[in-house]
């Protein structure tokens, strides 16, 4: 009796595995190496239907609004190959992203793919935020921007959300980059501002914006 139950469990697990294995993926993870001058990138997942019957893809669910899946057709005959493309948009994103993409078949089985996008930043800046402590003189403070590329980078605008903090480009620097000077408007200034620095980067002049926070306590 017990051995029959055990056999049933083993068979169920084996059958479940077989159902999801009809599409064989060339790779289930694709890494996109991007830099901040690129608006995005496309990951291509290739597959072949190794089963004996047709496979129908019901829907594709990416784990992030940053990724849009594109499939030319949804049904694949035995032996047929296909591709699933996933378009990743860089937008205002920074760093590394691991985007799961769940492929749901019409029999409710699923396959999980993974898109890893690594965005190399072409502008490094520091410090990322400035603080004037209570009682500290409200003297100007600088933020250094360094171009992490030989391609052209240009600062197109600098804006301080709070007018009590002035933000401007300063000329006195000797590195491949820029210098931004933040100045509270007086010694009694208390509050916070977000400074928005807009650049254009690379041959396609992609706009990339950086923020820093200036706070006087």
């Amino acid at each position, binding site marked *: 009796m*017990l051995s029959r139950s055990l056999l049933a469990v083993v068979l169920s697990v084996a059958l479940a595995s077989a159902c999801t294995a009809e599409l064989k993926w060339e790779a289930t993870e694709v890494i996109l190496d991007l830099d901040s001058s690129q608006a995005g990138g496309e990951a291509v997942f290739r597959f072949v239907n190794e089963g004996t019957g047709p496979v129908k893809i019901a829907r594709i669910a990416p784990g992030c609004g940053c990724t849009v899946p594109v499939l030319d057709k949804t049904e694949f005959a035995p032996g047929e190959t296909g591709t699933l493309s996933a378009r990743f948009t860089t937008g205002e*994103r920074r760093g590394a992203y691991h985007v799961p993409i769940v492929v749901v078949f019409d029999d409710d089985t699923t396959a999980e793919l993974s898109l890893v996008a690594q965005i190399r930043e072409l502008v490094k800046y520091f410090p990322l935020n400035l603080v004037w402590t209570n009682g500290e003189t409200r003297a100007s403070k600088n933020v250094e921007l360094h171009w992490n590329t030989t391609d052209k980078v240009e600062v197109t605008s600098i804006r301080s959300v709070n007018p009590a903090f002035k933000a401007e480009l300063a000329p006195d620097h000797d590195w491949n980059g820029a210098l931004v000077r933040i100045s509270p408007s007086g010694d009694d200034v208390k509050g916070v501002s977000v400074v*928005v620095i807009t650049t254009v980067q690379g041959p396609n002049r992609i706009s990339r914006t950086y*923020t820093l926070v200036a706070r006087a306590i």
Partner: protein
Amino acid sequence: MGSLRKSAALLAIAAVLGGLSVTFNPAARAVLLDALREDEITVADAKALGAAALWIDARSRADFESGHVEGALQLNEDSWIELLIPVIERWQPGMPVVVYCDSQGCQASRKVAERLRAEAGIDSAKVLRGDWSELRPR
């Protein structure tokens, strides 16, 4: 003796199935194997903070508009600059910050909290461990 063997065998089957679940189900793996990280906060602890915390909703605009924690501000990477400004203006040094999104597997809240700490100096930004819907009044 027979029933003892039967129980042991059933326990073994349960262990195998549990193992399979942990191996193949990322959500189960996260719940069972991940301890609370330093930058995370439990639903219970977050609830205890109540209105003393600044609540940040890291989901999409559509999700935010369909319901959110009362008083929460929206902040996501689709419109980072535009949404960051009200967050910075609302936050005061020392104020706890709880960032949430849909579920344990949702990465948006972690990314937003990381950026708040790194780029805005909000060291108190924590990620809600779990689904924001657990905070809804029953």
